[in-house]
């Protein structure tokens, strides 16, 4: 961040990593925020439909995925810390672990989607399922993107790159931590 620290980024230059990543993160949070507001509106208008949809969701699988992502985020944070002490090998191993847990998240998600599809619950079933597939699908797409970003910053592993990649990964983490209770748990 040192090369961006002095010039013209305003509040963004205080943050770790590349300031443009923070522009992206804020945009992403707006999108997920808007989808969750939509979810709240649908819950208000059609409480029975939302309740019926939620009762078909698997809390154990969602909970397992929460543990997986939080652990993965911890590994990514650890990778940044190791890189700043100069331990490049250790940092890369942590990043690989973070990425592997990201893949594990996607595998669990895949089982969940396959189970719903087998029950005939698709994106067009009703508004609850449209929003379920859109929010969790967008989130899963960001997990895919995040794994790619982690791989890239593991390869070109300057401290700034690592901070940038980890910031994105933590955003993916954070979105799930908000999405999981709102969509799966809160009834």
């Amino acid at each position: 961040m040192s090369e961006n620290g002095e010039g013209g980024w305003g509040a963004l230059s205080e943050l770790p990593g590349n300031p443009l990543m923070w522009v992206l993160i804020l945009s992403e949070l707006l999108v997920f925020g808007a989808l969750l507001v939509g979810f709240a509106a649908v819950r208000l208008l059609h409480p029975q439909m939302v309740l019926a949809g939620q009762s078909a969701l698997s809390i154990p699988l969602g909970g397992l995925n929460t543990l997986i992502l939080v652990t993965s985020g911890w590994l990514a944070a650890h990778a940044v810390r190791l890189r700043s002490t100069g331990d490049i090998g250790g940092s890369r191993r942590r990043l690989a672990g973070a990425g592997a847990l990201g893949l594990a998240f996607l595998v669990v998600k895949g089982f969940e989607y396959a189970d719903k599809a087998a029950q005939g619950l698709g994106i067009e079933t009703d508004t609850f399922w449209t929003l379920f597939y859109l929010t969790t699908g967008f989130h899963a797409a960001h997990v895919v993107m995040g794994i790619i970003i982690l791989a890239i910053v593991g390869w070109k592993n300057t401290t700034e790159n690592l901070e940038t990649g980890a910031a994105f990964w933590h955003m993916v983490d954070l979105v799930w931590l908000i999405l999981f209770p709102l969509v799966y748990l809160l009834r």
Partner: protein
Amino acid sequence: MKYESQKVALYYFAGALGLFVAQVLFGVILGTIVVAPNTLSELLPFNIARMIHTNALIVWLLMGFFGCAYYLIPEESETELHSPKLAILQFWLFLIGAAAAVVGYLFRIHEGREFLEQPLWIKLAIVVVALMFLYNVTMTVLKGRKTAITNVLLLGLWGIAVFFLFSLYNPSNLILDKVFWWWVVHLWVEGVWELVMAAVLAFLMIKMTGVDREVVEKWLYVIIGLALFSGILGTGHHYYWIGMPAYWQWIGSVFSTLEVAPFFAMVVFTFMMVWKGGRTHPNKAALLWSLGCSVFAFFGAGVWGFLHTLAPINYVTHGTQVTAAHGHLAFYGAYVMLNIAMFTYAMPNLLKREPYNQVLNMWGFWVTSSGVTFMTFALTFAGVVQTHLQRVMGMGFMEVQDALGLFYWMRLGAGVATLVGVVLIVWSLAVPGGKRAGAAIAQPAE
């Protein structure tokens, strides 16, 4: 002007200004037909006049972009243009192709797909023109200095050409026809054209405010990041009612709402740069157009777009005069004003005219902007009344149209004012300023 080859831009600016007058003239004819429906009904039916109005707009804006690129790229790349001769040949091909299309329309030769009515051979000629242009500017950038502005501009210009290719694909399935039609229409004006807009505004800010290039480039990256983030999936707001799956209503609503963000960022950007860099640049008119561009684009594209972009609202406003209001203010604010800003900045340099008609130009700004603004309000109110009577109360289409007569007369009046303003702008750019029209008397006009 630092490079001799920048002069080819003059061809494009002149051609664009000529078509600008024609476009607005046909707009006034259309406004007249709406209030007096038998006007020219045999010679020039409404649908044909509308084709000429919209096609002339698109062609002159593109011609203006080409001119902007030919002026901007040598100066940014610090090298002469790869081939000025090719640029001049390209201009004539483009102009003749556009003229042939218009003559064809008058004889009812067209393909009938809105905005893409050009016969196939004209479309292919446009592709050839685009390739000549891209070859010329890309070679220039490759041999010269690469800046963020030239990179973003080239990305936008290549994007324009690539997405135009979808105009050649016209599936017989009506839903797919519309899906790909929007890949041209939406991904142009709410995608790659915004990259051109941001790059040209960034160039004008560097030239006129003296703010460091490094700062301007950071803004440029943020703006184009926001534009692509919101604009690409924002295409979804056209997929609501054409037969696409219903989840597009969510995707379109969310992402197209965020399309306001890049336009808002452009307002903050231009005003911050002018505020930080001072307003000492002698070309006050070009500065006025640049600031006006970001403000009018924010209202026209951003605010007026958001008014009817959410799916539940669009369900009742779709295809009413609300859309026409948005279309007029958005095109004027974003792309007309951008082009005029660049013409106003570049033409005095190219023509080596120090005392130019700056005051007249600024009168043109205020008259045209007032005309388009009044038109936008007239159409917005017409659209709100139309939505209520037709979509909520369920009255018949023609009955409602009769009830909107007053608004259509006001729109025609605003259109005539716009035409007057456009003539002032073109006059001020084309005719040398007199001795008294120097910068000294520019002060009282502010």
